[in-house]
């Protein structure tokens, strides 16, 4: 049974939650604490899987609690449920909380968020990785991109569009920005997948605070010998451009197109996590073996999970949309997804496979049967040409 603890200084909130969640009493083992210290005492007694905490509380606030939890129980998923919307608190909690829910939060949203987090945890069969990934507050950024952002933000009148394109050129920053903009603190009704929209929505002040606080972004410090963040990012950009074309071909839904683009950008985020958190183990996988197995198979053999699953897990914890999570998790093995019809994973997988084919470095091979099952085989030639053209253009640029 999944163990969840709710922390709030207002007893009426806890009473309300207790009653509201009563129907789940057979699925969830729930505890309720009126403050950070009480919560930590309960957790010391019996660790929990998910902590849902208020942000502002007397004595020790939510940020303190979640930071403690992150240190003591890194595996525990950390969710903020707060009625506050102060920027300062948001920025403070951005590195210690996985997700943010805003009060008043309806029963369904709360239940779904907790359930989704629980399911994600089940997806991560490697507990060591689950622990490592859950602990992650920030991901390493490409130093030159980070420098460019710092420089732009240091200007008297920074250009929003320039900031957006800088952020978009870095997986770590993109992921963080998307986590933040999709958090309930900003009260958006729909999820945002476009970095440009996200940056516009957050505004320069928030971006500046993020840059200054240093709790959101950090620079890649060590060279792990693996594919560098630059290489991953550039590949992500190339594939994202193609994925967008394919998605546009298949749907008029702009949200899905955005998700496909963003998922393609971030689909190798797991590699970044692995190279940063488990550099030694990851380096071994990366060296590769010529045994006819896919890279995903190698990863699964060594770690129990693929880099796609690791990336998807983190972004899932961070509350990015299901479409993106699914596309990232299954970019190289789309058949494992339950997709019928169009979903971002279709565009991301096909774009990735065509890219590898054209670059003659086939890490990902087209899942032809799956594509055929979706009745998309006939489009392949067309997309291949599109990809060729797109990649030529990018190379020329």
């Amino acid at each position, binding site marked *: 049974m999944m163990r969840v603890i709710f922390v709030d200084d207002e007893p009426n909130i806890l009473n309300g939650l207790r009653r509201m969640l*009563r129907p789940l009493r057979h699925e969830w083992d729930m505890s309720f604490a009126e403050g950070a210290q009480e919560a930590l005492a309960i957790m010391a007694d019996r660790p929990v899987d998910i902590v849902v905490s208020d942000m502002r509380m007397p004595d020790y606030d939510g940020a303190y609690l979640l930071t403690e939890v992150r240190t003591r129980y890194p595996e525990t998923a950390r969710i903020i449920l707060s009625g506050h919307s102060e920027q300062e608190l948001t920025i403070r909690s951005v590195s210690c909380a996985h997700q943010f829910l805003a009060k008043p939060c309806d029963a369904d949203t709360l239940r779904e968020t907790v359930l989704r987090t629980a399911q994600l945890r089940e997806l991560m069969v490697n507990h060591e990785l689950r622990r490592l990934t859950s602990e992650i507050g920030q991901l390493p950024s490409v130093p030159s991109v980070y420098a460019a952002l710092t420089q732009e933000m240091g200007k008297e009148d920074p250009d929003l569009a320039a900031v957006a394109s800088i952020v978009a050129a870095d997986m770590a920053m993109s992921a963080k920005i998307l986590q933040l903009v999709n958090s309930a603190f900003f009260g958006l009704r729909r999820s945002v997948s476009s970095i440009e929209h996200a940056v516009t929505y957050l505004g320069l002040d928030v971006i500046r605070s993020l840059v200054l606080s240093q709790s959101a972004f950090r620079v890649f410090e060590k060279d792990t010998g693996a594919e560098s963040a630059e290489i991953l990012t550039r590949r992500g950009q190339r594939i994202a451009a193609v994925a967008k074309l394919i998605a546009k071909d298949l749907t008029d839904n702009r949200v899905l197109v955005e998700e496909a683009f963003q998922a393609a950008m971030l689909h190798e985020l797991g590699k970044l996590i692995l190279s940063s958190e488990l550099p030694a183990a990851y380096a071994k996988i990366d060296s590769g073996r010529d045994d006819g197995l896919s890279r995903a198979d190698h990863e699964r053999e060594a770690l129990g999970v693929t880099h796609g699953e690791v990336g998807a897990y983190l972004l899932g914890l961070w509350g990015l949309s299901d479409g993106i999570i699914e596309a990232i998790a299954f970019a190289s093995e789309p058949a494992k997804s339950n997709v019928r019809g169009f979903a971002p994973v279709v565009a991301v997988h096909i774009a990735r496979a065509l890219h590898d084919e054209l670059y003659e470095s086939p890490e990902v091979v087209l899942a032809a049967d799956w594509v055929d099952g979706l009745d998309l085989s006939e489009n392949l030639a067309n997309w291949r040409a599109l990809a060729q053209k797109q990649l030529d253009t990018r190379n020329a640029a």
Partner: protein
Amino acid sequence: MFQNLLLLIEEGASRLARSLESQLDDAGSYTVRKLTLKEFTQADSPCDGVVLIASDISRLLNGTLSDIVDRSAPLTVVVAGTHVDQHMAEVLMAGADDAFDPNHLTTPSLHRLLQRSIARRYQRVHVSTARRQYEDLYDNMPVAALTVDQGGSVTRANRALLNLLRVTREQDVTDEFLNGLLSGLAQLQRSSGRTTPEYRDRHIISVPSGETLHVAVFARAHPTDGVNAMDVYLTDITELELQARRAMEAENYRREIYDSSPVMMVSLDVRTRIIDTNRTFLRTMGLQSDSVVGQSILNFLGDATDRTEFARNAGRIQRGEVIRDFPISLAVPDRADLECAYSASPHIDANGMVVGMIAMLVDVSERNEAQRERDELHAQLQLTQKLESIGELAAGIAHEINTPAQYVSDNLSFLRESFVDFEAVLDAMSKLLNAVLEGSSASEAAAKLSEAIESADLEYLLEEIPASLDQGKAGIGKIREIVLALKDFSHPGSGNPEPTDINRLVESTVTVARNEYKYVADVELAFEESLPAVSCIASAVAQVVLNIVVNAAHAIGDQSERRDRGKITVTTRTLDETKVEIQISDNGPGVPESIQCKVFDPFFTTKEVGRGTGQGLAISRRVITEQHAGQLLLESEPGEGATFRIILPIRSCKADSGLEAVA
């Protein structure tokens, strides 16, 4: 005695003379001037003398004897005497010299000679007396005089002239001076074109010592010698000239000050007609002096109100009052009316009569504009600060609302879910009821009901639902409370003082600020229930209370070493029949003595950047002191906390910020 005697001694009478001399010595008090006949006839001044023949002299003097021609004198001398006046006789004596033949004395030739000589001498003596008197007058008169002959040479100069020229002798009167004087005169003579040779003018002359003198010159032809000579009289007017020049300079100086003053100055007569204005006035108006002088000042005023006001004030000035800083507008041709302030005072003559007034006008358009800008800026600042605090509060208020909203919503969800369970129970009950009514077997239905009751956990529901309803209601109450307080707090009002319930104002404000302090402190309200309604701008006062309460909460919250909750006490009370007080005390860190006097300064803040602009207390003080004529005081014992006292007059006596006339 015979002081003015002339002793004439005929040539060759040396022996007689000697003899006379010795006799005169015997007489003791007389000197004898000895003259030859030739010397006598040429002499131009009389001299004293005495003659021995006293009886004859007496006779000569008293007129009983007009002439003496006597050769029978005891001495061998011939004496010829003649009466001049009672003090004077002229006596001619011819000594009986060795070579002198006394017989000659009796000759008619001598007599004739004597006669002639006496006659001439008589005439000469009279002339000489007149001349001496004239010369005495000439020499001693206080007017510098000189006589110039035709050739341009000085023939005479008196002492006054020598004094004037700072010389001692006539000879020292230099050619340079003379030439200067004469050429000036000649010029004058030509230019005057007058036939009468008489001239008057002023000259600047250089005296030989090098000094420059101002002189008044009067010159005329010599009365006796015709136009060929000239008498020139000079009066030293240097001092007068200097005084005149000093007076003129003083006047110019005064005028310059008058003209160059940046203040417009206008002198008016009692009927407000312009007598004089300074340059500033003319320049401001773009007018010339001649188009202004003589006109009424009213013609230059902006509108009818200005004219009425000015005329009214003019009446006051004529009664001796002084007007200060009265607003007025000037109608400047081809431009917008100019906002001015004027001061005016009566112009009083030597008899103490008001003969006019002197008005000074200052262009206050910029000053007024600046004042307006300052007021606007202040209003803006006040608004900014209010928005800032509302912005700060918004998040807190949202939280205050969101929290009850959360549990109201949760409780509703619970109730909705519970109702489903209840429905199942009710459904089972209804089935049981039907079974009983139909008389069929109720045991199955009863078992189902029991099952439904079990499944619904009815005991729990019965226990929880009332609590859930109560808490839901309480949550709505909380929301209502804060929304009402917020409405109270943010009510903009008319911007004018209105009777206000201060207790309610404080309560709403504290409620709105609850989220700012509730994590660090408790607020205790101690209201005087009978507090009178206070005429004030409620939103502004509420803002001040908010600032102070939030400051107190921040101060307590920033005490990092503090473990216990702070306490903020807000007290209201009536101070006296005219004033009430809102006192806000905290037991925070207090305000260090060194900055107690600075906390009301604009931009003074101890908070980090981004947490307030440091305007809060500065604006608060302005709001209380300027808008409400109250006081905002700080008392603080560092370490013991701080107390702010807001003292408000019960009746609004908002200071008039406009210009005021002062009698």
